[in-house]
């Protein structure tokens, strides 16, 4: 049953897209910032993982132990040092500064690593599959990534709605001045949010690097996939983002089956169709 296999593959890669989107969505929720460099930061994480696996001779999974905290620190510093200065009523500064950042990261990586395609090796697990039923196989690695994606989103939801940090995020997003009145240092809260976002980006970057070839220029496409997943799923809803990612993944998989050149187009067309017909997304939450 080729179509079932194809749709399943689309669903599984949707998990990865949802992870691209989760970090983006988190930042927008907390501080109304859209980080245009988001995709390039995913690629940066992939290159950091590359360096770690090469220098320490460890598996990509193990490298996460280092890549995640490194990216989190980068996120905290970036927000505290640069992006906090762009927050405010004017929408130009954050947009243009993160755009500039995107260009800097892409070209910095180009200078350091050249345009050669790279890939992280995870070993035999990359090609292992198991048979779900007659004629239907699932890749073990994609399945693991999908399960991790669900875990990440569940984790973020729990953090947002059941922890003190999550309360701090929601309160600061609601009303910055009053958040200060209850003792929250909003500069610190925003920096923590960015650190968390880049921690998720780190996982997404390592998964991306294991799954496919990467080079410095593929960042913007990942940003677009994440963005499309957010819009399809509905602003403000983490689980909606998962659905959005899955819809996008399935659309691309079906498109690729029709014609390889139609893979990306199919995804974009579905995105534009949702924008036309249901612009608030499939599961919009009334976000503040």
């Amino acid at each position: 049953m080729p179509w079932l296999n194809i749709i399943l593959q689309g669903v599984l890669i949707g998990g990865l897209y949802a992870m691209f989107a989760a970090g983006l969505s988190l930042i927008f929720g907390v501080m109304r910032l859209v980080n245009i460099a988001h995709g390039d930061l995913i690629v940066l994480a992939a290159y950091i993982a590359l360096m770690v696996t090469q220098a320490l001779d460890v598996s990509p999974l193990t490298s996460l132990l280092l890549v995640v905290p490194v990216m989190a620190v980068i996120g905290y510093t970036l927000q505290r040092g640069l992006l906090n200065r762009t927050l405010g009523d004017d929408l130009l500064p954050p947009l243009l500064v993160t755009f500039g950042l995107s260009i800097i990261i892409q070209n910095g990586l180009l200078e350091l690593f050249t345009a050669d395609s790279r890939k992280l090796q995870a070993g035999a697990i990359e090609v292992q599959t198991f048979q779900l039923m007659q004629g239907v196989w699932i890749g073990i690695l994609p399945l693991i990534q999908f399960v991790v994606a669900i875990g990440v989103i569940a984790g973020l939801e729990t953090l947002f709605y059941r922890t003190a940090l999550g309360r701090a995020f929601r309160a600061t997003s609601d009303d910055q001045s009053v958040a200060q009145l209850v003792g929250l240092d909003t500069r610190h809260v925003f920096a923590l949010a960015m650190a968390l976002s880049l921690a998720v980006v780190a996982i997404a970057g390592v998964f991306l690097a294991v799954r496919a070839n990467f080079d410095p220029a593929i960042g913007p496409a990942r940003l677009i996939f994440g963005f499309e997943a957010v819009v399809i799923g509905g602003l403000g809803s983490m689980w909606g983002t998962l659905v959005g990612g899955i819809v996008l993944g399935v659309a691309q998989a079906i498109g690729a089956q029709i014609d390889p050149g139609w893979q990306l187009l199919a995804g974009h067309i579905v995105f534009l169709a949702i924008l036309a017909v249901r612009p608030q997304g499939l599961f919009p939450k009334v976000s503040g």
Partner: protein
Amino acid sequence: MTRVEHATRSSRIGVALIGAAVITLAFAPYWGDRQTLRLLAEMFTFVTLASLWNLLAGYAGLVSVGQQAFVGLGGYLLFALAILLDVHPIAAIPIAGLIGALVAIPVAALIFRLRGAYFAIGTWVVAEVFRLLAAQVSALGGGSGISLPSSVVQAMAPTRQMREFETYWLALGLTVLVLAAIVALLRSRHGLALTAIRDNELAARSNGINVGRLKLAVYVLTAFGTSMIGALIFLQKLRISPDTAFSVNDWTAFVIFITVIGGIGRIEGPIIGTIIFFFLRQTLSDLGSLYLLMMGAVAIVVMLWAPKGLWGYIAERFSWQALPLQRRLVLEKETGGKP
């Protein structure tokens, strides 16, 4: 009796200088060599693209990172019109502009549903869709692109020198036209409305300005101009491919950097920015990606510490304007001058 005056002493000087510059540039084929002409034409292209982007972002508040959609569309339309429909390449330029404007209408209908930074990314998606669609059109070379056939090239002018003069004058003419149109728009009451929108959209709305319609008009007009420039760019290059036509770096990154450094929301900004950009490019010669990296860093620094750009800083410091765009109410029948 009151009237609105636009000119100031600095703007009269500015207009005179610009007028002199345009005349000098019009004669460039006679005093400049091939390289100079190409450089100047390239600068004109960027001044126009940046001015149009400035109109969109700095005045209408629509920050687009996807204008390469129309640059590429204009280019492909020119090639399609010239190759498939036997239209004279020079005539094809305004036609490409017109079709680009028509395409902009349904595009706007879709992406205007997004706001702020999400709108920006939406424009990028549209550019990507155009790029992917262009790669599917085998009649125009598909993914690898196509060169302009010699029959079309000959149709422009019999000798290469004449063709280069022609494209140069077209570039200069188009730039002057687009800038004049922008100045005219900004001096009109629509321009006043745009400035109101830029300063405070909510207040503008409550004063009866139809914000949505005005933004749509600006988006479509910008698409018209950008498509024409795109057509001219690829007419000059004689070759087009999806990746070059819809390149973010070439048609958006540089344009944004030029406008930011020169000064957003001021019409003189893109001109100053282009001069600085090309000066840097000439002096720093070929640093490749390092050059882009530096531009990104400079743009960030400017955005954070001098958000009005170089011209913005100068204009405020000395109260200059190079073009007569200010609005001053002059009361006639006065004893002294108005302050």
